Structure formats: C-alpha cells, structure tokens
C-alpha cells in the first residue's frame, strides 16, 4: 500500500543568465493511494514531476510538505525501513559493470539484509524469468542496454519488496524484452504487490494499469481507471488527454 497525502516538493534553481535563484514547484499537493495488487500508471510529459514523485515514494527524496507512507511506514521518519519495502528502478540507474550479474545480486542482497543463500536463489530465479540466466557469470562490461536494464530489474526485486516502483522500465528495450517486463509486472500484481509505473508508452498503460494519474505542471490529474478517464475527458486515448491538458495549461483538472 502506498499513500501520498498533499505532497509538495520545491527545487531551487539558479538562472545561468540572470544568476538569480528561482523556486520551482515540481510537485504541488499530490494525494494518491495505490492498493496491494494494483498497478498504478503515472503519466506526464518530461519535467512534469513524475520522477520526483517516484523518488519521494522510494525514500530517495524528502517532500517539503505532506505525508508519504509505504505499507504504513513514513518515508521521511523511517527512510531506511521504507526503502526496505520498496523495489525501485529508474532508467537513470546504472549497473556496476565490473561485476557479473550474480556478484551484483549477491552484493545487493547483503545491502538489503537478505541472507546470501536466499539472495542467490531469488536472484537466479529472477534472471531466469528475464532470460538472462546464461549471462549470470559474465562481467557486465559488454552487456547491451536491455541486458543491463534486466539486471537492474532483478536488483530492484531481489529483496521481495511489497511495493514496486518502475520509472520508465521499457525505455530503450526491444519489443520482446519490453513484453518480458510487462509480464513481470503482471506477476507482481498477481502476487499482491503495489506497483507504480511511469512511462510514455500509452498502449502499455492502457494494457496493464488499473488506474492512471497524469502529472502535469506538478499537479495530479485523473487518478482513475483508463476507461473512466476516457469517458470523463470524452477522448479515445490517453494521448488526447495529454493534448487537452496542454491546451488548458494544466488547469483543466478532472
């Protein structure tokens, strides 16, 4: 279970030209809830505040205001406990390419407090699921982007997290690998985990997400099943919702 209550986040940036400091409200009063066994799609254009929201849920960033709870644990009050419950993946995340996948997973198992034997078994199981078992003992220096992404997914799920946060998990992946990831997300859902996915691939959202929230200019719009959003906005696809929001300057909240 994930619960966000009136979450705000502001960044201070420096204007290179005027040298003046500006405050940018990346997230403005977002409230949402993701229940166990639910896949929540978080959409929005680049720079809308999706990654910031996900990082705050994952306990990597602190909100300026508001409350974020992961399975009842406050991410600000107990960030380590919260992170132990979350499997976080971002396209920004790299892998330690000098290691083999097996070594990396064993090490991250230790970081997450997973017993070595369990980490080894679970890591190998995940690599098999992702079709990477044959590469378990090869150094990752020569791995493709897709292979590295698969290892990152295995790393994120190694400690059997109750909450899964995938930030653009299929970016840069071929169709087959992307399907493997989607299948894995469905398994996560079936296992009763709360899953949040951020993506730009609309068909993927429509196919797997139970509910969708659109972040536009720091605010959350929608927060309903895809079909309900279509009906509410009188559109046939999520792309059209985007266009409508852009036309309304983010102010046409539903």
């Amino acid at each position, binding site marked *: 279970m994930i619960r966000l209550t009136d979450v705000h986040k502001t960044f201070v940036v420096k204007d290179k030209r005027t040298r003046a400091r500006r405050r940018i409200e990346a997230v403005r009063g977002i409230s949402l809830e993701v229940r166990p066994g639910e896949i929540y799609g978080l959409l929005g254009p680049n720079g809308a505040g999706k990654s910031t929201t996900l990082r705050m849920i994952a*306990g990597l960033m602190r909100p300026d205001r508001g409350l974020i709870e992961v399975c009842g644990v406050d991410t600000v009050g107990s960030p380590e406990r919260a992170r132990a419950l979350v499997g976080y993946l971002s396209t*920004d995340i790299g892998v330690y*390419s*000098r290691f083999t996948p097996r070594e990396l997973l064993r090490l991250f198992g230790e*970081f997450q*407090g997973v017993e070595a034997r369990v980490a080894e078994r679970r890591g190998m199981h995940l690599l098999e699921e992702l079709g990477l078992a044959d590469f378990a003992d090869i*150094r990752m220096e020569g791995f493709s982007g897709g292979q590295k992404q698969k290892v990152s997914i295995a790393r994120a799920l190694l400690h059997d997290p109750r909450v899964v946060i995938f930030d653009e998990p299929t970016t840069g992946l071929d169709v087959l690998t992307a399907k493997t990831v989607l299948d894995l997300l469905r398994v996560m859902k079936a296992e009763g985990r709360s899953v949040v996915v951020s993506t730009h691939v609309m068909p993927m959202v429509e196919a797997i997400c139970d509910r969708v929230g659109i972040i536009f200019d720091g605010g959350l719009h929608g927060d309903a099943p895809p079909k309900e959003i279509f009906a509410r906005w009188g559109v046939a696809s999520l792309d059209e919702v985007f266009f409508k929001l852009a036309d309304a300057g983010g102010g046409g909240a539903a």
Partner: protein
Amino acid sequence: MNGALLILKKEFMELSKDRKTLFFTFVMPLILYPLMFLMLGRLGSQDAASRAGRPSRVCLTDPSHVLGRDLESDPQRFLVVPRPPGDLRQAIRDQKLELALEVEPAGAGKLARNETLEMTVLYDHSDESSKLALDRFKSLLRKQESLWVQARLKVLGASPQLAVPVKLETVEAGDMGLFMGKLVGSFLPYLLMIMMYAGAMQHGIYATAGEKERGTLLSLLATSLSRTQIIIGKLLYIFSIGILSALINLLSMAFSVGRLMATGGGGDPQAHAAVTGIAALATPSVLGLTFMLMVPLGLFFANFILLGGIQARNTLEASTALTPGIFVVVLLGVFSMAPGIEKMAWLPFVPVLNVSLAIRKLFSQQGNGFEYMVALGMTVVLAGLMTWISTRMLNRESAIFRV
C-alpha cells in the same frame, strides 16, 4: 556500521576486478622504486668507476719544467695533452680536457732561490671529471710541496718536523643515526602527505563522482542502507587506499634506498653507518607513533576528497576541484621540510603542520609528549569535524541529485 563495512567491501571488490588499477596502485611502486634506485645506483657507480679508472687530461704550460716530470710519471692519474687550439676555458667546458695548468715561466728559478712559485689552474666546477682532476692535482701538489719544504729545511739544517707543527687526526664523534633521523624526519611528513592525498584522490573520485556519472549511486541510495552508512563506507575506502598507498610507496622507497646505500656504498663506512643508524632509530615505538598521526591525517584528506567528489557532477569536475589540493599538500610538505621550523613556537598549534613537526621531532629523538598530543588531538578533532560535514553534505539532496 555493518552497512558501512558492506560498502567498503563493495568498493574493494570493484577495485579487485580492475587488474590494471590494482597493478598501478599496489604493484607498480614495489617494482618502480627498486628499479629506479637500482638504475640510479648502477649509473652512479659506473660513472664514478669510469672516471676513477681514466687518467685526467691535463694541458700543462710549464716552460721551466717544474711539474712535467711528476705528472708524466703518474700515467694512471694524469695524461698530459697538447694545448688545444682556441680558448682553454672553452676547451674545458667542451670536455676536451679536464684541467689546464700554467706554471710561471721562471718557476724553476724561483724554486731554486727558495721563493714562492706561482701557478694557475683552470677547471670546471660543474663537471665531476674536472673536479676529480683538480683533487688529483692538489694531492700530487701536496706531496711535492712537502718534498720542496723538506729540501729547503735540509739546506737550512733544520728538522723536517719544523714543517709539520701539528698532526691532526679527525674522528667522527657525531651520531650518524641521529643525522639521518633529522634528514628523514624533515622529508618523511612531506612524502606521507603527498602519497596519502595523491594515492587516494583518483580512487575517491571514482567512488563518488564516478558513481554519479555511471548512474550507480542511485542504486545504492535505493537500498535500505542509510546515507550515513554509505558515506562512512566510502570514506573508509578512500582512507584505506590513501594509507595503503603511502605505506607501500614508503616501504618500497625505504627498501630501495637502504639497499642502495648498503650495497652501492661499496663498503663506505659512512653509508653503512647511515643505514645502521636509521635502522636503529626507526624503532617500533617511533613507527607506531608516526602511524597514529597518519591515521587522523589520512582521514582528514579522505574527507576532503570525499567532499570534493560528492559535490561534483562528474569525474572531470571532481578532478578539477581536487587537483589544486595536491599543490596545497606539496606546499605544506615543502614548508615542513624547511630548516629551523621546529623553533617556531606557534607551529605546534597549526593543524596539519603540527603533524609534520611531530613526526620530524620523533625521528630526531626530540619528541615532545605535549606537542605530540596536541597534534594528534587537533588532527582527530579536525578529521571528526570533516566526517560530520561530509555526512551532512551527502544527506543533502542538492549534492546527490546535482546534474
């Protein structure tokens, strides 16, 4: 703390996968210094042997034949060559000859009349062969002078001992070990500082800004390890590399220099006394106390590197920020080598420099308990303060997510 050790383990595991870096960090110094000093020793001894085995070329202008026979009778040391065309000074600079001797034309007559004979010698002080030729000539002249003086005394019917009122025997009363201790103490802090900083810098950059650049820092931060554990782990890694690097370099250097002095000295009693002296001085307590000072100093440097690395967006920026630190360390080191600094009353209270002073005094057997404790205490406090600042910095989102 366990989490910090896991990070330390991860860093060393990563390092162990990079054979080239391992080689250049830990194996290269073990090969480089012995090889370098061996080559230097060989070249030096070969050069000295070649000079010693070759007669010095001397251009002699001696119309009255005062010295000609003496020089020619010692072909092992002198080779009288004809005057080269042009300027004699230039000929010496061009190494066509080592020495040019000019005896006044009426030299023989003056000697016969018991007057003072005048002669001029040209040599090049910057050339070892020319200096050797001058030494050889002075030695020959001393013998010849003694013979002339004794002949004159004989003519006067006086005792030959009249020319030798005093016979001086020089005996070295000083402690060669102490002399070497002072010498080592003056440059050891410099070497320690530069090796600890430079040795750890690139590894520190790799472990901090490098993690950001490769996008791996986020994966660490997303684990259930606390940020403090991550920063302490990285700090321990940078510190360990700095200390290991300095120790390996120093040991290799000490072994090479010791061997060079013991063997290359060719049985020179001074060289032997120096090696024995320094070996006697480097007692476990002196080495232990020096190491105790190195620990907080290494931690201070590690924190400095960590701060620079964490604040940077990428390795290039970190490298640019941290490289001037090398010059600061060099400057501190050079200052600590300056003669007479131990007399500055305020120096024991200046951080970092007081460590240099304390090490210097330890090796010159002038250790002062109070000053040592002040240096140790101040460095420990400084290292602790820097660690606190580092952990605060890493906990700041602006430092981690600075892109």
